[in-house]
């Protein structure tokens, strides 16, 4: 299941829901708010989603993963709102009989989610400046592209 949450995510709770004695492998990915991006000190992050479309696209991504890989379960949850350093921004959890499928599916889900979900990120810098990532145009200071992270 794909979800969007405006309240803090608890990985222990998300994790416990995955237990299944048919699964031999569980791979989770967590995206955390880190203290810098492209060398600039970051203070906090804001995520904003176009929720109906993000939910539909998120479910499509999970369905694709289930089709391509031999999975027991697959979940993805994305935060929205204003997040502080160290907070959990996105969580992907995959279970499978064997680990190769779990690794491949987890990576597929987060790669597609980052590329396709209509969810935007605004960085608040220590300098007081802010930038919507990937929305920069000529004259804005934030880089328009950044490596995967």
């Amino acid at each position, binding site marked *: 299941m794909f979800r969007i949450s405006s309240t803090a995510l608890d990985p222990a709770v998300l994790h416990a829901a995955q237990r299944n004695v048919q699964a031999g492998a569980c791979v989770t990915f967590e995206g955390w708010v880190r203290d810098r991006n492209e060398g600039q000190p970051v203070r906090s992050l804001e995520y904003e989603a*176009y929720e109906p479309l993000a939910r539909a696209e998120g479910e499509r991504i999970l369905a694709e993963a289930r089709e391509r890989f031999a999975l027991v379960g697959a979940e993805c949850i994305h935060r929205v709102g204003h997040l502080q350093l160290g907070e959990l921004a996105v969580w992907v959890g995959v279970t499978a009989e064997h680990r190769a499928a779990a690794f491949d599916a987890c990576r597929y889900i987060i790669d597609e989610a980052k590329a396709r979900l*209509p969810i935007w990120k*605004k960085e608040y810098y220590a300098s007081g400046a802010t930038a*919507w990532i*990937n929305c920069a*145009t000529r004259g804005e200071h934030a880089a328009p592209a950044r490596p995967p992270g």
Partner: protein
Amino acid sequence: MNKTISVQYFAILREQRGLSGETIPTAAATAAALYEELRVRHGFTLPAERVRAAINEEFVAAEAPLREGDRIVFIPPVAGG
């Protein structure tokens, strides 16, 4: 020939417009034409080619026709990374 269209803004477009959404009359025939109209009116910094559109909660092509009562969302580039 004017249609009534409801427009939603997100992220940088919401901030530049100062509104999350509005319902407006427009003569624009397509999603792209409406974006261009709004970009000029509100000074949006994102060029049309970097913005996608969704009508009634489905992604559409830039040349998708607008119909009376449509709900349109202009989608800035996503964060990626």
